[in-house]
């Protein structure tokens, strides 16, 4: 039975191979990427990711909508912002950068998912200082998202591996309330004597005292934002905060990340505006006019003069692509300080801290001297830009204290020029100061000002729990519209 022997032989051979092949097949471990990480390795990723998204995405939008900059005449990258044509496809990448990242080496870092990993892994390893930093940055990030979008996924967010693939959207006010709780929890984890992140913390170099100051300032920022919408909550919260005798960020203490300027480590705004798409942004007439009127010396560092004519000529907001003429006729953001490869990204500035304290004082909620805080804030802003503001706040000076909230708002708006543009737009939405005329290109749309961003299509198309889209001129929850 020769055939049977052959058949048997083949069967035996096959059988042998099959039994041994399980090991041979066990080669499906990705050799290109690690299966896990540590808080030390992921904290810097999250911090730089946050700085990149703020600087290169929300900062440009904010700086245009707050009338610091406007679309340049010979390009069209940001025409949509001037046309108030802010759609579901804007900020698709930024939404991913904040929540999830977009995969693969060399791609977006998901800020909130990374911060969540840092916090969880750090608590398991008793690295509580890491956990505190991660949670404070989560609070900071979620506040920015609420300020931009109002309702966002919060309580069920970042839990994909638990099977929650379509998180619910929480109301902005509810998120705000919980952010305060989270700040208190994080502050409880801070222990300056325990091991800290050191150089893995690119913001404060592991200085946990500064993180405590950051936490207090952030809490103040959250309450101040509600000053119009929920004055009672804001006042009570601020009173409770001051009762703890808090330390805030001082005028020269900025929560920021610096860049070496080497290839791939340049300031993200420079990468976005200067390296690949120059000519998109020029100075807005709204800002240059005000700075020139006040003879504000900061104009010399906020802008470079127009190559043609050498003046600080601003372009009327939104006229770039209609009758703007040439790029070289206009002043543009300063190339050595704002659009520089080594410019820092500021998450929260010392002068912002002082303006928040000044407002609390001016409202009589903190028992501090509003005038002193206002003066310190203006000086700190000048000082950040290498200028001396003393003469401006001196009696009779252009910015001398006049005992109004509007003056604080206005100076705060001036101070966000060039850095924290998103905060400039957000505070303008809250305070209505200064009064802005509509972009020429936005005017045809009727009575519309962008008051929020619209949830991006990548979220709404894959999340059945997303609410009905809101129009771009729908105010967010704390915006009482002036």
């Amino acid at each position, binding site marked *: 039975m020769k055939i049977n022997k052959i058949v048997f032989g083949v069967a035996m051979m096959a059988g042998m191979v099959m039994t041994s092949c*399980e090991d041979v097949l066990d080669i499906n471990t990705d050799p290109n990427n690690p299966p896990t990480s540590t808080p030390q390795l992921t904290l810097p990723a999250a911090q730089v990711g946050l700085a*990149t998204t703020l600087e*290169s995405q929300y900062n440009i939008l904010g700086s245009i909508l707050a009338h610091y900059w406007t679309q340049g005449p010979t390009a069209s990258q940001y025409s949509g912002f001037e046309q108030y044509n802010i759609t579901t496809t804007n900020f698709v990448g930024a939404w991913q950068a904040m929540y999830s990242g977009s995969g*693969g080496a060399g791609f977006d*870092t998901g800020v909130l998912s990374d911060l969540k990993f840092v916090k969880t892994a750090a608590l398991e390893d008793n690295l509580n200082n890491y956990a505190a930093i991660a949670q404070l940055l989560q609070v900071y990030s979620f506040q920015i998202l609420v300020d931009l979008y109002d309702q966002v996924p919060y309580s069920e967010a970042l839990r994909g591996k638990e099977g929650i693939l379509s998180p619910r959207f929480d109301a902005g006010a509810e998120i705000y309330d919980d952010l305060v709780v989270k700040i208190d929890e994080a502050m409880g984890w801070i222990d300056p004597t325990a091991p800290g992140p050191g150089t893995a913390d690119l913001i404060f170099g592991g200085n946990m005292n500064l993180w405590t100051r950051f936490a207090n300032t952030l809490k103040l920022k959250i309450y101040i934002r509600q000053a119009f919408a929920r004055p009672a909550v804001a006042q009570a919260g601020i009173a409770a905060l001051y009762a703890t005798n808090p330390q805030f960020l001082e005028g020269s203490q900025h929560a920021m990340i610096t860049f070496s300027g080497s290839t791939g480590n340049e300031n*993200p705004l420079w990468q976005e505006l200067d390296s690949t798409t120059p000519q998109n942004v020029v100075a807005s007439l709204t800002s240059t006019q005000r700075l020139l009127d006040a003879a504000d010396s900061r104009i010399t560092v906020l802008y470079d003069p127009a190559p043609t004519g050498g003046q600080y000529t601003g372009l009327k907001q939104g006229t770039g692509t209609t009758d703007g003429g040439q790029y070289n006729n206009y002043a543009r953001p300063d190339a050595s300080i704002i659009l520089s490869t080594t410019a820092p990204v500021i998450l929260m500035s010392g002068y912002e801290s002082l303006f928040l304290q000044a407002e609390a004082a001016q409202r009589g909620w903190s028992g501090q001297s509003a005038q002193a805080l206002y003066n310190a804030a203006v000086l700190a802003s000048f000082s950040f830009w290498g200028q001396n503001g003393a003469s401006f706040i001196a009696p009779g000076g252009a910015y001398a204290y006049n005992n109004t909230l509007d003056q604080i708002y206005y100076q705060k708006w001036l101070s966000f020029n060039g850095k924290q543009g998103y905060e400039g737009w957000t505070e303008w939405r809250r305070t209505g100061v200064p009064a802005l005329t509509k972009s020429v290109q936005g005017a045809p749309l009727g009575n519309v000002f962008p008051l929020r961003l619209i949830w991006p299509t990548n979220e709404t198309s894959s999340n059945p729990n997303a609410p009905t889209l809101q129009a771009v001129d729908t105010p967010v929850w704390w915006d009482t519209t002036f």
Partner: protein
Amino acid sequence: MRKFLLVGLLSFVVMAHHAIAQDRTVSGKVTASEDGAALPGVNVVLKGTATGAVTDSEGNFALRVPNAGGTLVFSFIGLQTQEIEIGSRSTVDVIMTQDAKQLGEVVVTSFGIERERKALGYSVQEVKSEDLVVGRQTSVLNSLQGKIAGAQISNAGGGLGSSTRVVLRGPTSLLGNNQALFVVDGVPINNSSNSNVQASGNFFDNVVDGGNRANDLNPEDIESVSVLKGPAAAALYGSRAASGVILITTKKGKNINGKNEVVFNSSYQLSKVLVTPKLQNRFGQGQLGDNQSYLNDQESWGDPFDNSLRPYGAIVNNIQQYKRYAALPTNIEDFYEIGKSFQNSLSLSGGNDKSTYYLSFTDLAQTGVIKTTDYHRNNFTLNGSTQLANKLRSSASINYVRINANLPQTGQRNHAMSNILNVPRDYSIRDFEDLNNPFNTPDGFFTPFAVNPYYTLAHDYAHQDMNRVYGNFQLSYQPLDWMTATARVGTDVSSDERNTFADIVEYNNPAGPNYQGAFNYNGEYTEQRLNNRELDANFILSMTKKISERFEGTWLVGYNFNQRNASNTGATAPDLTIPGYDNLGNVNGNYVAFGAFQKRRLFGAYTSLDLSYNGYLFLGATYRNDWSSTLPKGNNSFGYPSVNMSFVITDAFEVSNNVLSSAKIRASYAEVGNDANPYQTASIFNQAGPTGAFAGITFPFNNGSVIVPGFSEGDVIGNPNLQPEITKSVEFGLDTRLFEGKISLDVAYYDSKSESQILNAAVAPSSGYNTQVINVGSVSNKGVEVTLGGRVLSLGDFNWDLSVNFAKNKNRVEELNSGNTELTLVNQGLTPGLKIRVGEPYGVFEATTTLRTADGKIVVGNDGIPLDDPNPVYIGTLQPDWTGGLSSTLSFRGLSLSATLDTRQGGNIVSSTMAQLYFNGQLEETAFNDREEWIVPNSVVQTGTDENNQPIYEPNTTPLTMYGGGTYRQYWANIQGGARNDEVLLDASFIKLREIALNYSLPKSLLEKTPFGNVTIGVLGRNLWLHTAKNNHVIDPEANAFGAGNAPGFVNVQGYEFYGIPTQATYGVNLRATF
């Protein structure tokens, strides 16, 4: 299934014990009627018994027969069966002739097994050598265009060595690669295609199509190509065959009485650009509609041409140039060179009764229509076979391919193809060629918005140096007449080295026009190494035996091992220091290294049983089980069956007549399983690298005082419970020969469904992840294929052969993961976007359209410019409605004229070239109304809202003007910005004259006294004529920005043209001689 096998096995066992009484011996020799050569392997059977023999290599046979004699039946596939009375003879010599009117033709099927067409229960289409090389294509795949029903074969563009994508019967996998598997002489080969890595990280920058590896084959070395379209035909090849198989059989040496054959072929071809966009010739340089022709603008929004003498360009060295202000209608065409191609091949082959050999060498040298691009390919092939001992036969094949090329760049950013679109209608592009001319340097160039295309061509390059060796070794042992054991091991190793350089562009002269407007470009340099290694081994035992006079069977069992390694490594210097120095050391800062490695293994065990009854009923069944490394341990074993049946009606019922020579019906059902891509079963972390819209931060991060590493959580939720994908397919077919076999008609209907697809399903980003690997979704393909051909006219020596094919495939995405109705294929800012959507064909375009009122009126803004509909609309798809081809050959004695037409109707493509030409005011449409004021026809403007908050519209009275307000420049330019982008979505229909060739074979009488056996001279043309859809006067719709569709990070990204290299019409001469 199991029962089927058992029956087969038992039959063989019974057979072995069969014995019949015999008395005397009859012997003889079988020869072919054509050339009198001995025919080995002919079956000789004593009619009514199981007694039989097979002729040996000399064509001799000997058989014991009863004293009374009887009838001998001589049969051989492809030849007419003969029955001969023995009578009292002891010697029976037989001459056998070819069987024209039967379905007796032999085709190559799985594992290179030759089978009669009539025995197949599924569709196989074959293209022979002479039809492949008629157009003297340098690509085997391109030469199949128009010749295979149901095959969509798309060449990516006019660039040298550009890749070709082959999809059979529509896409089956949502995110798999969907291309057919290529098998050469029984061994799968690598068909990868990779675009170059870009330092910018943007996939659409400076795209270089480095070809697909199946296009490396030399058409001259190919004997035939068999296309196994459906899963039934391909089931034995396992996982990778779900999209069908292209089986390539290479030429082998033949035993021609020990004589050697030498074939020399030489062809020389010239190529000229076939399609350039239709442009306006009425308006010249100028911008923003302010009519003051900015002399350094790249747009054509200036004054009407008036033939006046005007200044142009920059002032350099105090010189202002002047020229006539008039259109140069061919300034873009003039940029393209005449491409040249010179191909020489020489082959030697021969053999004796024990051994054969085949040796060939081909040299192909090409220069492209884009200056500085060239392509050089060498193919060496050596194969041979020998009969070792009586029952042992071995064969081996080794092939070496070298490609050395300078390839053109397309896509976004600075390269010649984008720069030539940025030249006004009155500028001569050719005049930019002299780089010593101070007006042609970056400083002196007329515009800061583009770089002199010749400057880019002189400085930048994309070099490819590809070395590849593939081949196989085979040993077969035939212990018994009816049993063969074969071991075949094949390997394919390639190393593809790419060096891509974009030089620094510096503006030094403060007086130059570009000094203030343009920004220095810092250059980049990338070295990339793509290595692929594949090992494939098969052990096959096959048994063929006549079970009885009526029953014949073949049983095959086999075992397969496959391993594939791929790596893509290299480094890129994103910012250079010294101009012109192409070296990684020339980096300002750090260079960025990259490396990706992939390895997978698969074991397969398979069996097939084919039974035939009386030569008219055939049954086949297969079963294969795979064990794959890419699936999780518990789920990595999966099996799938197929059955097929073929019934030759005319033979069974003996109803053959003058009209209907033969007819066969066939049916099959098949399943094919498919494993996953590697590394999808677990979640990972990535090296961090936050990005904005245009650039990004690289880690390790340097903040000026410390350098820290960073890793970020991956955005994909891996799946440790992944299951294999499965494709199920049924097919019915009819195969007939009419009018004494002169006409053949083949019709196939199929219905396939690919289920539990492995895909990265989108999840809400707020979950912390973007996708989750899951088994969901299904895609169906239903279609009809018709091939009709034959000799339509025969008058003496004059013959006209015609073949027509038609295929209609209906592709539909049936299901995605729950709660989702769409998946995004591309969202990198390309507009319109490409999506997968339930209920639609695979790949639908999502376009932004003009906002319209309920009754269809266009809504404009206060400036008179149409507004966008805020809700994107799905219009258009990648999938054509139908495809077809027509081949015709007229022959008269030694003269033959062949032509192939190819058409694809329906489907869409997005043209970035068109968008750019709208923007620059160059496209014909932009001269609408002679650029006099006009109001958007049928338009309204919103004046307010009513009590129900519904918009109130009034007729629009605001004209578009040259100056201020809403300009018509803005009207057209907005399209490039993404507005109304349905206007760049083109109908991709075309009809192409693929090939036309006139050949003349010198008469034998003329060659008798020369050493030549055969001499043929010919002229040929390719793509001489192209007809496109009405809305497309811009591009060849076959263009594809991403080669065969595997841009890094993407699969199946078809349907985008991005400043591509235009297709060319080719004219050539050819000489072929045999010795």
